[in-house]
């Protein structure tokens, strides 16, 4: 009898944590734009990971810094070597949640304006970060997008004086991902 109680305890514990549908994408698109007086630089990453827990409204987003591709090979090298130091800090990660998630109910073909609140980690610096985002549901998939500005100095990235007209102090970041249900 005790054995069954134990089994019961064990499984109920398990079920409680794994309930709630999760959505994910491994092809999240991140683009950043630096619009400086002399030069406009854009870079793209099409292999960002995002996972969203619909039970809690929490989500996590991860981009490999080396996964950003640039128009010029040398820019990409400098981005990794001199600014992001991607050998030491390989990923940029955002962990956050959707504000007032419990009051939201996603329905197909509806677009929702939401606020997200969380922590952004890149170049070894973690900062609280808030942004607006757009959520919608299509054919059972969750489509998420957001645009925000990052002040690069906040993340301990120094721009030398010689290139101050080539790289802007704030970069615009555009994020878009289509998340599919996770089968478990």
């Amino acid at each position, binding site marked *: 009898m*005790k054995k069954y109680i*134990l089994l019961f*305890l*064990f499984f109920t*514990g*398990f079920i409680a*944590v794994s309930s709630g549908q*999760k959505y*994910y994408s*491994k092809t999240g698109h991140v683009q950043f734009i630096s619009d400086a007086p002399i030069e406009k630089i854009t870079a*793209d990453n099409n*292999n960002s*990971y995002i*996972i969203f*827990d619909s039970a809690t409204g*929490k*989500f*996590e987003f*991860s981009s*490999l810094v*080396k*996964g950003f*591709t640039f*128009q*010029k*090979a*040398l820019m*990409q*090298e*400098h981005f*990794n*070597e*001199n600014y992001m*130091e991607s*050998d*030491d800090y390989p990923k940029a*990660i955002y*962990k956050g949640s959707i504000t007032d998630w419990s009051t939201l109910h996603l329905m197909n073909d509806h677009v929702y304006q939401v606020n997200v609140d969380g922590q952004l980690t890149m170049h070894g610096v973690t900062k609280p970060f808030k942004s607006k985002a757009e959520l919608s549901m299509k054919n059972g998939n969750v489509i998420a997008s957001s645009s925000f500005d990052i002040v690069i100095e906040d993340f301990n990235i120094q721009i030398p004086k*010689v*290139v101050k007209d*080539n790289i802007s102090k704030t970069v615009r970041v555009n994020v878009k991902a289509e998340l599919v249900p*996770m089968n478990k």
Partner: protein
Amino acid sequence: MILVRYTFFIVMIMAAADGQILAQKEQTLLSLLGREETTEYAAASFKTDHVINLHSLESTAAGVLDVKICHRFGFLSGGLYQLFGLDQATIRIGADYGITDRLSIGLGRSSYEKTYDGFIKYKLLRQSTGLRNMPFTVAILGTTCIETVHWAHPERDNLFTSRLYHVAQIIIGRKFSSAFSFQVSPTLVHRNLVSTVAEKNDVIAFGFAGRIKLSKRLSLNAEYIYLLPDQVSQAVHNSLSFGFDIETGGHVFQLHLTNSTSMVERGFVAENIGDWRKGDIHIGFNISRVFTIVKPKT
């Protein structure tokens, strides 16, 4: 009673295990997705495709033209009379181009023996981590040069082929950390014409080169080329060079001290007369400037 205690113990373990699973899930939702399914290639093992004289394991990126101006002053041993070599100069002007990220070509013209040279370089293996793990980069290099200086003995029956030199090289290297890279390059230099019977037409050598990054934009480089014994004239010395790479945006300046006068393999591997012990050292520099000719599709 024992049974109860035992049960209590088990429940505690179970609860702890459950708690741990819960904690893990909360901490890293991302871990549910597993590791990134990408291959990351090691980049920027060296700042340019040349260490000093030797080719580095890096090649010019696809669609990029790298214009190079290389300069060696005379020997320091020339003393004050020659202003420590500043009165003389040997130069090479050339350009390298990346056809793909793995295949690159280059052309150049040196004042040393009025030599034209061309190379083709292909990365067979690329150091990577992730989906594909490869500890080393391996590149193969073929160089041909044509000497166009007037024949020393025009009255003889001179052959065009006597002006040709060919080099085959394998470059095996690794970026051990972001600060340290090292490479070995077994080299074969073929000379169609040599000055004496004692000298070999095919010369085998091993190049060793490394760099240590001192700061984000400055690195210290060194290279040494070991010639197997009894292949060339006694006057030839192994090439030894030290230098700095200074990067400023689109330019890389390489400043160095070297006992090699020539800037093509045939010269600095097999015909290097400078002797460090006698002060036969050149102050030299290479300037590299890249231009993006074809932008990659994104």
